[in-house]
Structures are given as C-alpha cells and as structure tokens.
C-alpha cells in the first residue's frame, strides 16, 4: 500500500498531473422568447475566475433588465476583488469553504446594490432579480442561488436539480401541502418568496458538490424549465455533441414549446482529465492518482 502511494507520486511528478483544477467547456445562449417584448435575463461567464452567473430580471417589477445586469456584474466584480481575502476572512458559514463563503457574500452585496439603486431612482423602484451562480475550484463546485432560476447536474444519464426554487408553490411542495403535479399547473408559479433587490438583506442558499469528469452543469432561467419538461432537457444534453449545440437546442426547444418568457441557459461540461485518461490505461496506479 505504501509502495503503491510512492509510485503514484513519482508518476504524478513525471507526467505533471498535479493540476487539480477541473477543465471545462462552456456555452451560453439567451433569447427573448415569443411573448415578452424584451429580454430581461443576464448572464456572465468569467473563464479566468471559473465563475458562471445567471440572473432573471423580474418582469412585474420595473427595470428588470437593469436589476439582472447589476446582479451578474456585481457578483463577478465582488469575486474578483475578494479573491485575495485571507483564509478565514469573510467566512460567515464555517461549514462551507472560503470560496463558497465569498460567493454568498458577493450575492448579498449584489442584493444591497440593487436595493439601494431601487430606493434612489424612482424609475427603478421595486426592481428585482433572481440569481444562480456557480464557481469551480479544483474539484469542488460552489453553488448559490436566490429565486427560481435553477442549476441542474447531469451525471451518469440522470438530471438532478441542485437548487430549490424560492417560490410559493415550491415551498408548499416542500412542506407536503401540494404535490409536484399540482405545483406544475398552479396559477401561482410566478409568485416568488425570495429575490434580489426587494429587501435590504436576503437569505442566500449555498451548496457544495464534488464534480466528476463528464458531468454537465446547467444554469437556466425559468423560461426554460417552465416550458421544457426535465426528461426532454436530459435528452438534449445526452444527444448534443458539444455544449454550444446543447445550449442552442435547449433555447430552441423552449421556443417551440411556447417561449412564454425569456430563456437563458449556461451549459458547462467537465472534461475528462489527463489523469482520467491515464487511469483508463493504467488502472492499477490510476486509482490512487485522481
């Protein structure tokens, strides 16, 4: 066993396999849909920061597009400024890593900015937005969200929802007051219980998940999930040869199903790493390598 480990470390040195950061491909696609006059969704991909942010401006509220743009810009900027923070600094949830804590903090600060802007400018009064943000650090995915924009993980052929909507119907389902099927046809699907910008402070949901090669991550606004059933989303992710085609097909499908709202998707696919390839050919030391 000891021998095995040392062989592994020598091989690791020889083949420069110490790079632990997951490699990924990403593509995003956004569309106004077929009903709404304008697109109030926003997204930002920051490749150097391994950061992906999506926001849906709230249509009922004035200036939804301003709120969603502010949300994504503000999160990307905060992550850039705070990344040099000392370990332990800004950590309000000790059970989560520093990176996740920074992401939570970035969303909280985006909330304050949007709220303040809403108070200051009469035209922006009451504006709001949802947010879902993903950050990849090594093998770990940090995921935070507020509102009904979702994150899904597609792994081993199954689509798993990583976020719980902050909507009235979803809360009723969680409390056992309503079935999944009832929620899907409820008139109150658009009633959110949390959003950015509507109150001075906001409770941010955070999760950490380990990523594996060949995982796909999907961030999307409700314009996709309300139109396209999950089994069709999974089918598109399986069949599309690349992330670009997957993103495009998801948006097209939502439009074919009616396109009632703005549709935005960000598709991230984790590449099979060099270590993985190595493990395929040399399973006896590969098992310890990765």
């Amino acid at each position, binding site marked *: 066993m000891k021998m095995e480990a040392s062989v592994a470390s020598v091989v690791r040195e020889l083949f420069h396999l110490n790079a632990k950061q997951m490699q990924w491909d990403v593509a995003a696609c956004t569309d106004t849909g077929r009903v709404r006059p304008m697109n109030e969704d926003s997204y930002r991909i920051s490749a150097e920061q391994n950061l992906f942010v999506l926001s849906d401006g709230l249509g009922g509220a004035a200036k939804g597009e301003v709120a969603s743009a502010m949300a994504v810009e503000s999160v990307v900027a905060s992550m850039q400024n705070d990344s040099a923070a000392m370990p332990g600094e800004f950590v309000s949830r000790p059970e989560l890593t520093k990176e996740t804590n920074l992401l939570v903090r970035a969303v909280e600060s985006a909330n304050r900015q949007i709220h303040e802007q809403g108070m200051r400018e009469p035209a922006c009064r009451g504006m709001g937005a949802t947010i879902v943000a993903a950050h990849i650090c090594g093998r770990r995915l940090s995921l935070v969200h507020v509102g009904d924009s979702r994150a899904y993980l597609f792994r081993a052929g199954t689509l798993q929802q990583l976020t719980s909507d902050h909507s009235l119907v979803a809360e009723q389902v969680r409390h056992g007051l309503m079935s999944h099927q009832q929620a899907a046809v409820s008139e109150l699907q658009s*009633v*959110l219980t949390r959003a950015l910008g509507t109150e001075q402070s906001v409770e941010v949901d955070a999760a950490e998940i380990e990523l594996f090669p060949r995982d796909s991550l999907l961030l999307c606004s409700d314009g996709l999930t309300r139109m396209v059933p999950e089994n069709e989303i999974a089918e598109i992710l399986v069949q599309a040869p690349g992330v670009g085609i997957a993103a495009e097909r998801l948006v097209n499908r939502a439009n074919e199903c009616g396109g009632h709202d703005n549709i935005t998707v960000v598709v991230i696919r984790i590449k099979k790493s060099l270590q993985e390839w190595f493990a395929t050919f040399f399973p006896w030391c590969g098992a310890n390598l990765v």
Partner: protein
Amino acid sequence: MALLIVKFEDSVLQRVSINGGSVTIGRGPDNSIPIDNLAVSNHHAEIKSEDGHLVIQDLGSLNGTFVNNQRVKQSALKHGDVVLIGKHSIHVDEKSRGEAPVAVNRPSGNLSGGVKEAPKVDETFILDTAKRRKMMQEIAAAGERSQITPSRVRVATLVRVKGQIEKAEYQLTGKLTVIGKSEMATVRLRGWFKPKMAAQINRRDDGYYLGRGDRVPKINGKPIWSPTLLSDGDLIEVCGVELRFTIPE
C-alpha cells in the same frame, strides 16, 4: 353581462364573464373558477345571475366568503364589490361591454402535460418576508383543518445495515449525496475496485431520489436504472454495502 375579475395580490389570474347561469368557485378542478389554495374549500361558493342581478352564496366553506370584508352566507353583488375567498379576490365589473372576456379554460385533470401550461400569473412578483411568512402560516393552518397535514421539511437518514463504511448513520442534508470512494463522498466506500461515485441521492422538493452512478444500485433487491423516489424503510444496495433509508413521518 357582468365580468368577474379573479386576482391574487395585484395580478389578474382570470376574467370570467357571467351572462345568466352560474359560476362556481372552489379548490376542486370541476369548478368554473378553480383556486389552488388550501384555504379554499373544494366547493367554496357560487355566483348566480338571477334576472340580471348577481347573487353570491357560500356553499358551506370552512374559511368563509367575504364581500367587502363582511362574511356572508348569501349576498347580492353590485358593480365594484370585492369578494374575498382565501387569498384570492374576485372583483365585480358590471360596466364592461366591449372587452371580450377570456373563456374559462382549465386543464381538466390532465396533470402530466402540465409543464407546458402557460402560467396564469404572467408577471413574476415577489412576496416580502413578512407577507410570505403569514401566507405560509395560513396555508399550514388551513391544512391542519383540512385532510392534509402539513409537515415540517423532513431530513432523511441512511442507516448502515451491512458493509465497510465509516459511520453507522448519515444525515442527508445536502442536495446531492454521493456514495462512492471519492474523498468528498458523503458515504465513503473502501476497497480497491470501488468506483469513485457509485450512486447518488438527489434531494428534491417532493423527496429523495436514488439515481445510478458508475454502478446500478438496488432498492429492495430491484435494480434502479433511472432516478427513483425513496420511501421510508427502503433498503439500498450498492457495491456490497446495504443502507436503510429512513425518513421521519
């Protein structure tokens, strides 16, 4: 001809014209104005048009029917009246002429195709924290009085039955629980040929779903190829490890 405008908060859900005949309101899908809310009885109230006059009658509802904030058994309605049923309000408009009302349309029991239904409240809006708390309490209270018992959000536990794993019990608090050899796996497997990610459990709004990873797990001896909802007492088997899934009632 009168128009009934059904609203939730400030959003218009439905416009229903009443031109002779009657309109029923309730939680059941057979009503002409169905309202999905536990504060509303199955057959809550009825509005009839009698000789050009509108009359509302409460059909023995649990939480009552209110006209301009007065609880009523039966009452005449006139232009501008507001009927309150649960959290929904119905505004009576007898002056509207030209505007063609939207016919009452409703998915009739076909819930499977529900995802494609156009949302009835088109504009998204947000409940503030205080309003949301109040509403959830009311919904829960209504649930207590009706047949459905509301429960707290439940956290499941995996209990070791057999196999080499670190702990005897695992609380499934995360959105995704991984069973495998990986360092970050919740349920860590040991042994040389164990996969890094053997199986996974996804916590969703309506419960916990077991899905495959690099192996196909079994529930009560049956192999699971697609995500399957777990129920209390199920035995999960994967890579020589057996775990009992328990969730408090």
